[in-house]
């Protein structure tokens, strides 16, 4: 092994960071320049690879139009060209495939993307899309370092903290398919962002953070928001970091903000008598993305001109402009996405129009601060008293706009006045964790730094799994016509179970029918942190336990005439961070010989 590699497989952008391993010391973390199509017949190397795939019409592909240094006769393009085409040919462009990976109502191995595309488009599955992006990074790696196959390197692949076991399993499938080798490990993205900060600080972090401090990592990507809480603890006189909670997978991000800004500006155009056509709207969206930071700066002129260039070759003649009131637009974005709210506010459930796209279950409440309030209230409280996090670590390109950061800190600090919140002078203000300005690349860099630490025995954030897991067991009892048998939830993995460990779940043996497919309902919880393996829950609320895809197994037994096998469960968290559940015969002496692994079913069986 010569290199440590960190890969950020993002919803909108993917990045590969690497560091060379030498005998004496670990090398500096660098970013890989990734060759990608920027126009037909034209490649350019960029440090980020937009996570988009364009599926060409057969007439377009040909004459080397989509060739890469390592591939000829291609009929698709990944990266910048695909991102550009997503605007003017959406039916042929796959985007946001990562969000589809954790979307339980569709079969994620089926060719369904681009969603709602016409029949003549060769659709691909969300897993295949993820594989394409990773494959592109792998190929780019081999193009640069032909003597260091990626399968022999130490690779860290980041996933959202909120990814459930199925989404992880599917990501793993894509990674193996792309040639990453079996030995890569997963790291949660918000943790990676914190590792990037640790890398930047060196040993100074021990002076900046104190025992009992907590850090809220707020990672707002293009399409998703991920929350994580890290606690600073002390063990044997040393400071240690522990990841104590992860938030739900929130489908709201920077793209929603750009779109909201574009809607606002489009209304200004309409008021001036200019109705924008679809091409102009896309162009406006792009302008708003570029202008967002300027628009959110309080200093300078009160208005900012936004132009949409004419489409044809008569550029000046058909350019339309409007002066946008910066105050009004920043209020719209701040109040829409980072609204003032109290600690007791909860995300609103009613559907909001304007941010919806058919297919993905976008957040009904785009108010990120309300989601944070619910998260903090849930995870930072002991006996009903909330302790606010001392620091916030911002991650994601959205936070280049200082206005968003400022607003968020104000809102969280404001919660200190609530009687349910503990406050003294030391906790009075919530501060941003200083440094960490590399908002676009921090996750990949941090993943690489984590790999270095794992290799060389440096600083690690502890935490284990961010959920507890349960299987549904139907209880025996008299059947009542028309009523389902009561369902109980058996805890199989406790919150915080460490990677590389396994646990035998103590329970009454469950009789499984031989030769038939058995199915277990599967649940996870981010909040029930005390449940132990073997614990049987009789009732729970919808918020506590979230059901995802069921687990399946077919028990094949050779040469016996049994019809039932009594089993118990063994669960395991692999070094990679993958969850595995096994049915183990509970007949004495057979425990090691008769084991069956349960697999997630990602098909829509309803």
């Amino acid at each position, binding site marked *: 092994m010569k290199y440590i590699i960190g890969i950020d497989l993002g919803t909108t952008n993917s990045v590969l960071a690497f560091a*060379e391993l030498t005998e004496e010391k670990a090398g500096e973390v660098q970013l890989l320049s990734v*060759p990608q199509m920027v*126009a*037909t017949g034209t490649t*350019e190397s960029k440090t980020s690879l937009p996570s988009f795939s364009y599926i060409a019409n057969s007439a377009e592909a040909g*004459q080397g139009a989509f060739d*890469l*240094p390592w591939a000829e006769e291609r009929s698709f393009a990944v990266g910048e060209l695909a991102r550009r085409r997503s605007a003017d040919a959406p039916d042929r462009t796959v985007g946001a495939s990562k969000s589809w990976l954790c979307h339980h109502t569709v079969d994620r191995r089926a060719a369904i993307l681009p969603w709602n595309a016409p029949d003549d488009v060769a659709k691909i599955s969300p897993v295949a899309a993820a594989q394409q992006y990773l494959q592109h990074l792998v190929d780019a790696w081999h193009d640069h370092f032909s003597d260091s196959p990626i399968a022999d390197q130490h690779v860290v692949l980041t996933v959202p903290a909120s990814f459930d076991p199925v989404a992880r399993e599917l990501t793993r499938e894509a990674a193996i398919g792309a040639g990453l080798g079996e030995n890569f490990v997963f790291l949660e993205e918000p943790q990676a962002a914190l590792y990037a900060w640790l890398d930047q600080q060196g040993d100074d972090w021990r002076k900046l953070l104190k025992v009992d401090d907590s850090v809220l990592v707020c990672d707002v990507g293009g399409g998703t928001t991920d929350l994580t809480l890290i606690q600073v603890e002390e063990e044997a006189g040393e400071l240690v970091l522990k990841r104590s909670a992860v938030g739900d997978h929130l489908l709201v991000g920077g793209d929603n903000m750009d779109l909201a800004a574009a809607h606002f500006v489009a209304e200004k155009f309409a008021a001036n008598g200019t109705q924008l056509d679809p091409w102009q709207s896309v162009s406006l969206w792009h302008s708003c993305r570029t202008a967002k930071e300027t628009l959110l700066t309080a200093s300078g002129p009160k208005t900012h001109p936004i132009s949409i260039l004419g489409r044809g070759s008569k*550029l000046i003649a058909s350019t339309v402009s409007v002066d946008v009131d910066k105050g009004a637009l920043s209020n719209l974005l701040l109040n829409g996405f980072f609204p003032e709210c109290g600690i007791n506010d909860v995300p609103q459930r009613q559907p909001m129009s304007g941010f919806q796209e058919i297919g993905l279950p976008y957040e009904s409440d785009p108010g990120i601060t309300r989601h944070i309030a619910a998260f903090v209230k849930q995870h930072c409280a002991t006996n009903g008293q909330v302790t606010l996090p001392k620091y916030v670590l911002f991650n994601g390109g959205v936070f280049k706009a200082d206005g968003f950061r400022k607003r968020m800190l104000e809102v969280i600090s404001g919660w200190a006045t609530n009687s349910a919140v503990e406050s003294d002078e030391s906790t009075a203000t919530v501060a941003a964790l200083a440094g960490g300005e590399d908002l676009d690349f921090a996750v990949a860099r941090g993943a690489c730094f984590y790999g270095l630490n794992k290799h060389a025995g440096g600083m690690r954030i502890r935490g284990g799994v961010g959920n507890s897991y349960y299987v549904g067991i139907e209880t025996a009892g008299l059947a009542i016509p028309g009523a389902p048998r009561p369902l109980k939830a058996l805890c199989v993995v406790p919150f915080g179970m460490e990677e590389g460990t396994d646990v035998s779940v103590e329970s009454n043996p469950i009789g499984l029918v031989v030769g038939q497919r058995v199915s277990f309902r599967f649940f996870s919880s981010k909040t029930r942190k005390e449940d132990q393996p073997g614990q049987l829950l009789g009732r729970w609320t919808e918020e506590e336990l979230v059901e995802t895809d069921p687990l399946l197994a077919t028990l094949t037994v050779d040469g016996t005439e049994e019809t039932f096998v009594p089993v118990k469960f063994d669960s395991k968290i692999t070094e990679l961070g993958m969850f595995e559940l096994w049915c183990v015969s509970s007949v004495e002496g057979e425990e090691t010989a008769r084991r069956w692994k349960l697999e997630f079913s990602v098909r829509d069986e309803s």
Partner: protein
Amino acid sequence: MGLMVATKAFFKLLTNRALSESFDDFASGKLALEAEKSKPDSAPAKPSEKPKAKSKPEPTSGRSEAISLLSALQREARFLDLVKESLDGYSDAQIGGAARDVIRDCGAVIERMFALQPLSTAQDGDSLETPAEFDPAEYRLTGNVTGDAPFKGTLAHHGWKATKCEVPKYSGSVLSSQIVAPIELEIK
């Protein structure tokens, strides 16, 4: 300023093939990753490639890098549409409205591909002295130039240098290599 830089850099490259190649050497030599340098020549080189003395195998380039740069400026910044349009009959405000975005986007392209930096960190009007021996390409002396170096003067322009040169690579056919921007056809 961005537009001026774009225009200058572009014409420099267009008119001076040698310069563009020296940029290339500069970029691939000085700025290449260490590991890239150690990459063996014999790696997965395509048979169609022209043998080159360089340490890094170049992808086949069927067209001048200048066209690729022009194409990028048009694609990302609408540069050609702006400079090819007659300015007659437009008010300064109209021109400014369109030019603002074009200049901004041209600047971003130039910055990404060339990462320009001033040659001197001194400010306009500061007094500056050349070294005893200097590269005539680095200093342009104006006014009353007499005697021997070092020369002392007032900085009129800090100069620019490209710290890299990463123009997109062309892999299309030779036939279409002169195409800077394609026809756009919207299928209803």
